[in-house]
């Protein structure tokens, strides 16, 4: 028994000693699945680690858990895409120095024969049409599903909820409809389920394009690129000084977190993000957001981003900034 206790202690101590003294400095990034599953973050990680003595550890589990990680002090940087959640997060003091790093558009995908006939409609009208189609189904036993939701509190799920609301529905009631399926899993799994059931779903463009190109799914993108489908990605550093639960945040690697955020918004990285996947998919998976916002470029998408993802007229109001003024000049 003594041996067992000792052995356990050795494993714990070994892990601690390794990470405290021998390993490179550790930067834990908790990220939304779309940035990770498209492979973009892997590339950014490689580029960054080549020039820095830092070991980036990416935990990919969706915006919901990323926020939770940051609140508990289990991550140093979070990359998310749910502005309403981010706002609360900043207000509660868990995150600082928010930077919008990229954007793209969600897309409503569905079976190629489009039984509800949503193609060419706006997202709002498409959801109304899907609702009417769902209600008109002969089978209301819950066997036939025509809409699959992520159902995992991810950024995509948050977006879906706001789209149903914008179309005039109570989301709680919608999610209880017999034709509504709750996948409770990542984007890839949700696309697979929708494909198997010949159902519609909301997807981020990157994951959809990848699955579609590989022939994993036969769903087609029916509604793309409109203001209500805008998807804005931002980075935040986890606050090192949270008065409420300071002890949880003492070990946050704030310096490297900020350095990584500066790397993300640098011109070279922004260019890299814009070009990522272009050769493979014939279109950008993500668009650079830093320069257009800085220059207040005339494209409509800039004002869309400002409407959708700015708080008090700024990507990060001054009270939520800490050091690093160059990020906002």
């Amino acid at each position, binding site marked *: 028994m003594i041996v*067992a206790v000792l052995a356990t202690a050795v494993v*714990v101590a*070994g892990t601690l000693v390794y990470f405290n003294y021998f390993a490179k400095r550790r930067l834990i990034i908790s990220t939304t699945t779309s940035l990770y599953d498209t492979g973009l973050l892997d590339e950014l990680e490689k580029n960054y680690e080549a020039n820095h003595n830092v070991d980036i550890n990416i935990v990919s589990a969706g915006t919901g858990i990323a926020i939770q990680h940051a609140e508990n*002090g289990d991550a140093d940087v979070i990359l998310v895409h749910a502005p309403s959640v981010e706002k609360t997060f900043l207000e509660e003091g868990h995150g600082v120095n928010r930077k919008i790093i990229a954007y793209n558009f969600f897309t409503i995908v569905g079976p190629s024969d489009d039984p509800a006939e949503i193609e060419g409609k706006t997202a709002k009208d498409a959801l109304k049409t899907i609702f009417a189609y769902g209600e008109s189904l002969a089978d209301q036993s819950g066997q036939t599903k025509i809409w699959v939701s992520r159902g995992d509190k991810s950024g995509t799920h948050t977006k879906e909820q706001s789209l149903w609301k914008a179309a005039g529905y109570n989301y709680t009631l919608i999610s209880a409809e017999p034709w509504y399926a709750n996948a409770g899993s990542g984007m890839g*799994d949700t696309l697979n389920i929708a494909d198997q059931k010949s159902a519609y779903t909301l997807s981020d463009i990157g994951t959809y394009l990848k*699955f579609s190109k590989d022939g994993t799914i036969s769903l087609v993108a029916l509604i793309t690129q409109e203001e209500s489908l805008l998807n804005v990605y931002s980075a935040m550093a986890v606050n090192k000084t949270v008065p409420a639960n300071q*002890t949880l945040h003492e070990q946050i690697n704030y310096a490297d977190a900020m350095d990584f955020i500066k790397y993300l918004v640098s011109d070279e990285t922004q260019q890299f993000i814009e070009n990522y996947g272009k050769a493979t998919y014939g279109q950008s998976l993500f668009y650079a957001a830093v320069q257009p916002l800085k220059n207040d470029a005339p494209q409509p998408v800039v004002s869309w981003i400002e409407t959708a993802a700015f708080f008090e007229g700024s990507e990060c109001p001054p009270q939520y900034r800490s050091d690093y003024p160059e990020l906002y000049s």
Partner: protein
Amino acid sequence: MVDILGGIIKALQMILSGDPMLYGILYRSLFFSGIAVILATLWGTPIAMLLGLKDFRGKTLAKTFFNSLIGIPTVVLGLVLFLIFSKGGPLGSLGLLYTPGAIILGEAVLVTPILVSIATTAIEAVDPEIMNLSRTLGASESQASITVLKEALNGVLLSNIASFNRAIAELGVALLVGGNIAGLTDVLTTAISRYTARGDLDLAIALGIMLMVLVFGINMIVITARKAKLLLTLGRSPQ
């Protein structure tokens, strides 16, 4: 449609070409599960000897406890350990979350009930006369216990193999407390889950094949060894 056959062929090519990333994941799986079983054996065997050899109040309850924990869903244990290892949890200050140490400890806890249950059965099946005989021959209590343990060695070994199979094939604990960090805490099962979610099905299939070969391989060795009488059947009936 997914091209299953094409995927399998590509997967086999990757395995045969010795893709370092694939083998890195394999070695991590073997290493984490191996250390986990060693840990579980160190603390599980004394428990099994206690349950198998001593009579005390609550013994049946303790045995039922370990038996019923055999089937604990790995994801529930993963959740519990996540809450414990998270900075907000009771052991948060150790900073173990998302490290190999967390997976090893988690899997060791996971396999302890299997290990204890099988080892207890093996120890109980040893003829009680052997304990008495060694005492008669002048052995101390602990020497006699060790004699019994030697007799039950096959069963204890079997408990290790069963534990190893459970550890290497489980997903929940490794995913939730390891975080599936590429190159650090990703193991066969969590990497399969990642590459399926990413649509990299060739990679997922390759890892799946590796995991199946491993689990089947271990079981084949056990069965063959038994047939060859290298390992005797679990326990012995009293002569």
